[in-house]
């Protein structure tokens, strides 16, 4: 479709629009407000982390980070457990096998934001509003289909001979799962887990509506205060933004191959 120069032109363009804004953000986050307004595009005059310390002292950012970790890790654990169990069950032949599979992945393309009102009203009624348990559960449901799809791809690729060998050695239904299928699915589960965790970490809509105060608000919700109450201090907003991005970027830098693999949705192994 495209020749060599156009090919590189496109890729370089996409890289520039990715890298330049992020570097500009990083640079602006260590400037003073005055410096930012006087020379928004120059390198910072002095390398000072003052904005970062200001964020830490003014904002409950560690509380936000903690809440994000609990909600996203909790959801990831639930999703991986449920996905492994279901994927193993679907290895067996029974009449509704295909139907069950379709039910389990049906939510994958659902515009889930449309489901917020009944969940919100139900959570208020049963006391899950403004709680990390509630948010973690919602994320477990929202991101289950995509996590399950990736996990199932890996479980399905376990050679049948290994499972048959275990069965003929006398391993029962649960033992085959515990000693063969689950251990062999660890790489797949890790791939899916990273993907789900990043998705849950980055979620805003549900976190915004289902929480009320910093005891359960995530770091994404915390961000909005900078556009309302703190909109006077831009460098502070930049510093907060950088801090909110660090965890997922760190995971990505360390495990970029797995993240990329997850984005193939399990079609590559």
């Amino acid at each position: 479709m495209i020749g060599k120069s156009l090919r590189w032109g496109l890729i370089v363009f996409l890289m520039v629009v990715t890298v330049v804004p992020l570097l500009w953000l990083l640079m602006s986050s260590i400037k003073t407000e005055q410096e930012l307004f006087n020379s928004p595009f120059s390198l910072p005059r002095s390398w000072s982390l003052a904005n970062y310390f200001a964020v830490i002292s003014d904002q409950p950012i560690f509380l936000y980070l903690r809440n994000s970790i609990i909600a996203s890790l909790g959801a990831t654990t639930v999703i991986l457990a449920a996905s492994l169990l279901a994927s193993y069950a679907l290895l067996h032949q029974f009449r509704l096998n295909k139907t069950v599979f379709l039910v389990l992945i049906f939510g994958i393309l659902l515009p889930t934001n449309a489901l917020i009102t009944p969940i919100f009203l139900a959570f208020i009624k049963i006391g899950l509003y403004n709680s990390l348990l509630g948010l973690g559960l919602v994320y477990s449901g929202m991101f289950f289909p995509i996590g399950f799809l990736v996990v199932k791809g890996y479980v399905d690729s376990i050679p049948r001979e290994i499972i048959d060998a275990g069965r003929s050695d006398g391993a029962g239904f649960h033992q085959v799962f515990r000693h063969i299928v689950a251990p062999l699915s660890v790489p797949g589960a890790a791939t899916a887990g990273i993907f789900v965790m990043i998705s849950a970490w980055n979620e805003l809509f549900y976190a915004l509506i289902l929480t009320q105060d910093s005891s359960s608000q995530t770091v994404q919700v915390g961000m909005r205060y900078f556009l309302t109450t703190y909109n006077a201090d831009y460098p502070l907003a930049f510093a907060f933004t950088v801090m909110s991005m660090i965890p997922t970027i760190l995971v990505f830098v360390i495990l970029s191959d797995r993240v990329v693999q997850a984005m193939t949705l399990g079609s590559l192994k």
Partner: protein
Amino acid sequence: MLIEIPRARLREGPAPRIDWKAVRQRLAVALYLFPGLALVMLFLVGPLIFVVALSTTNWIGIGVPKEIGLANFTDLFRDQSFVKSLINTIAWTLVGAFIQAPLSTLAALAMMRIKRGAKVIRTILVLPNVIAATALALLWYFIFNPTLGLLNGTLSSLGLSKLARPWLEDPQTALWATMVPFCLYVGFGMILISSAISTIPHEYYESAELDGATIRQQDWHITLPLIRPTVALLVLFNVSYGLRTFEYPFFMTGGGPANASSTMSLYIYNQMIVGLRFGASMAASVVTLLLGAVFMAAVFFALRRSDPLR
């Protein structure tokens, strides 16, 4: 092949003998399916049924829902901000399908022939896809800032300061400006398409080359026909994203000016949290779901129609 489970009933007739081992195995399968099914029922299917059922009532969270027919829906279409949000959401899905997905595909086609540094490039392009849209939205809010933003700054340094404008405050540009980061960050789509390209046998390209096919012809006649289903999948993901897009308008414009960049998610949020109008928010949700069903059906239809083997 699936693992066979013995039938639970061994002998038909007046005194059926039950194979308890088989029954236990079938129960175990059901048990293993339970957590996943419970999650889907509680948080996807259940709310879906409720939102549809309650959208025709005047329920506000307490008391007994009273059926009021389609009043919520007729009210919606009389609300200018809803109509605007609906049109904008349709625009988001169309941009996702006709701009973002083709750009991702082009990037994958380009990457396919880049050998040196491919891994570094890939890592950089995927990076924004692991960063929260919240952070990216805040970042682009500042990029579009009229005085200290990167965009107007770049334009004026290129001598194009005539083009500089308050992008997010101008009703002509606000909606399109909120879509820019979504369109430019093609990492996920590129990876998805690349994974499909990598399954195409090498021989196809080798024999095409022997026949003197140019790269353009190879892309057009070999690669694209073979990755159609994956491109369709990406379009589906983008449509689904377009229908629930929230962070960019919420942080960059708040839906303004005068609803010029509002979306369905933002409308639902405002009805619920600002207006406490749950009937309106549920009716708008049902419209969103219907829109999704129509778009997804259209994608499947288009995929079928364009099948070269049909």
